[in-house]
């Protein structure tokens, strides 16, 4: 019975997701093309240095990539190619868009995954401890540190970590080495500073959210009942209080995941020279590389829609009272 309505719900959501993704794709495609910029803009300095006529060079570049055709014709051709699995040709990196994404997604994925795990595990543990030991010196210390963590800009933290741990102490390389094998200790070590940089803000926020959600539940009658029943404290905290506090936490963690996929990891990637999708997408935006901008927007949209769907499904397992019509 449960399976039946959930399956229908998932199918309905997937259908909506496709419609939303198509809408966002269309809007992005049209917006980037009707905007005042051209992929040739970035060459102006070089054109000037060579004493060339900029209009001639710009016309040559636009003609080569078919950007001189009417927007609707470009859109039609794009959709047709997309349906055949052809995501287009990246104007700024000279390779098929799909190859570009295939090559770079792993850098972002490992950084986001490790940062999220680092932030979620440590953040939640500290948050639980803070809530249980409310108003102790440790709670005050964690509260103070979490405010600092929330306030520190990623960019600044990354540069400081490099200056201290790489330049002064020589413990890490100043940049991420892409030649390291993916599943290796060396790669894990290389990701240490980037993960701390990206994860610190999230970790600090999770400490605050967990503490707050735990405190909300600690005051509820079911906790008193559980304690009155003589359950051990770790069971009361772990099984009863934490499970109820998880619902808002899952929402926040999933929301964070969606945001960092859409660009939150960009600054960390920039600081540590990680050639992930954040860098790819921002470079594509500045280079007016339309096919890449549209493709990454589409992928980002799909990821966010998927994360939302997974979150909704997770709710039904965390709280069996939840049921979607």
């Amino acid at each position, binding site marked *: 019975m449960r399976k039946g309505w959930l399956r229908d719900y998932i199918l309905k959501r997937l259908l909506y997701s496709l419609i939303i993704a198509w809408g966002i794709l269309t809007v992005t495609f049209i917006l980037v093309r009707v905007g005042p910029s051209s992929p040739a803009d970035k060459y102006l300095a070089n*054109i000037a240095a*060579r*004493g060339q006529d900029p209009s001639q*060079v710009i016309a040559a570049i636009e003609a080569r990539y078919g950007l001189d055709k009417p927007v609707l014709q470009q859109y039609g051709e794009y959709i047709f190619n997309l349906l055949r699995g052809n995501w287009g040709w990246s104007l700024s990196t000279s390779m098929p868009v799909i190859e570009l994404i295939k090559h770079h997604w792993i850098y972002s994925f490992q950084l986001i995954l490790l940062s999220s795990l680092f932030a979620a595990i440590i953040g939640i543990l500290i948050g639980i401890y803070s809530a249980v030991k409310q108003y102790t010196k440790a709670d005050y210390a964690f509260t103070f540190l979490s405010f600092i963590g929330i306030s520190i800009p990623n960019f600044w933290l990354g540069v400081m970590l490099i200056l201290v741990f790489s*330049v002064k102490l020589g413990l890490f390389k100043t940049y991420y080495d892409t030649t390291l094998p993916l599943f290796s200790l060396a790669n894990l070590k290389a990701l240490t500073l980037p993960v701390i940089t990206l994860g610190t803000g999230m970790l600090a926020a999770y400490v605050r959210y967990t503490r707050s959600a735990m405190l909300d539940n600690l005051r509820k009658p079911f906790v008193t009942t559980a304690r009155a029943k003589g359950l051990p404290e770790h069971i009361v905290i772990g099984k009863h209080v934490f499970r109820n506090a998880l619902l808002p936490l899952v929402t926040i963690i999933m929301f964070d995941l969606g945001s960092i996929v859409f660009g939150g990891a960009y600054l960390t990637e920039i600081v540590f020279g990680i*050639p992930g999708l954040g860098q790819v997408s921002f*470079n594509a935006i500045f280079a007016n590389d339309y096919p890449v901008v549209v493709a990454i927007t589409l992928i980002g949209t799909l990821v966010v829609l998927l994360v939302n769907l997974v979150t909704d499904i997770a709710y039904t397992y965390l709280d069996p009272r939840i049921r979607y019509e």
Partner: protein
Amino acid sequence: MKKKAAIIACAALAVICLVSGGVYLARTAGVKAPGEIKVKGIFIEGQSGGDAETLNWILAADATSFSYVGHTLDSLATYDNDFNIQLRCLAKDIEVSPDGLVYTLTIRDDLRWSNGSPVTAEDYVYTLKNLMFSDWLNYPYKGDWQEEVNGEKVFVTPEVVNETTFTITRKTVYPEFVYTLYDLTPYPKYIAQKYEGDAEAFMRAPEFNNLSYTGNLGPYRFKEWNRNDRFVVERNPDYYLGKDVGAPYFEQYIIKLFGTSATRQAALEAGDITYTSIEPEQVIKFKGLRHIKVYTVPTSGYTILAYNQRANGWEGLKHKEVRQALSMAINKYGITQNILLGFAEPAFSFIPKVSPWYTEEGIVKYGVDALYDKQKAAEILYQLGYGVRQADGSIKVTDKDGKLLQLVLVVNVGSKPAEDMAFFIRKELLSLGIETEIKLVPWPTLLRGYVMNAVPGSKQEPAYNNGPEAVSQERWDFILMGFGTDPLAPSGSHVFFTTDGGLNFMGFSNPKVDELFARAKSKEALDKTVRQQVYAQLSRLLSEEQPVNFLAFHRANRGFQKNVMGIEPGVNMGYNYHLWYFE
């Protein structure tokens, strides 16, 4: 008598030998002879200016793409730091016919493609005729190879003479065309033919995107290009210039990209990279590091303050005297010393000091010494009707109606020195009574909104110079930006300063300037003495006319790990990089 003379001669010879030997030893102290140098190490260059667009260079419009490809593919010739020609793929220097119309090029006979076949004159001519001049490929720099004949643009004519010799014939004389020829690199005809006529196939051709054809044509061979990360080339043991000396001496040469200058410089400090450029404010620190050597070298780039002489700029800017007075009120040493920290020098015209065509004679030096005089500037503007005398006798610069003069200065957001310069200029002008609104805008907005122009009410597509009636979409009075002059071929700057120059967005027009640029490109300029005179006149005239305020020529700082040997610091210090080595 004879004996005495012989003794004197021997003594003189000995002194000469000792002196020249000493000079030689001093110059080459610590530098090994080629036979003693071992191939070792990986040279890592740190860059933060963005990645290349393509390795299929004929499709590239950006300088980075050409620089990447240049590691694997030599051009016909290059220059040393004194602009002496250094032959590369050329067997001898280009011969120019007395009438300046026919250029004869002879390439080396030991150049090979990757399949072992020789690189021939046919490859060069094919590259020009069938690729660069073609309609289907849309080579962005076609204009380099076109000339105007009877009002029409036509291509120059390349022709094969024999296996290693080809000619290029022009219909009109252009003395500096030879510098375009030196930059020429070929595509292999045997591969390119497969893709001829199909732009998309050419664009995707694996041989061109992986540089798998370059044979012995460059010091390195392509290994890997990870976008937004690194470009890797490895030593080419067959390099035609390296066979006698064993060069190049690095096992690999890597260009590592960084997102910020801070992390790029931290990588140099930590020893993670071998070389990168150093920001002015970091130079003292890096000079103090024992393992780093910093070279300060001149460049041909300069910063200007463009004066809008079009209809939507302040009408005063159309007058030479007003432009001169404004330039007189801005202290160039304040910019070069305080903002650029001494890594620049005041500019007064468009030809940089490093250029063989540079002259100081007769140059009007606005903004320094006697010509940095705000009081005099205010007096001139007052005399022209742009000012009111206040009760204390001082002059406040105003518009013609005596109202407060409010001008707009536009600058690209993101460059701290440029932003600092804008605020410095505002302060200088404020002391005359001129209020300047600074607009910090992104580069595309600067181009589309302020630089590009069109005649109002017309159906013109916006361009950088759409004629004297054209105006930009947004109103502006000053734009702060960087210009560059080719030190060997300054006539290319006609695009900025001639009435119909393609990049003359400020609307400057002076018939004498137009005539001089035309003369610099004419037959009479084949005589270098005449060309020198023409450039001297142009420099003087532009320093006087002030179409823009020439603010500062920049110097660059290059930081290397100290164990890199063989470097010759200068404007073109990479010209012999295949001979650099690790100690």
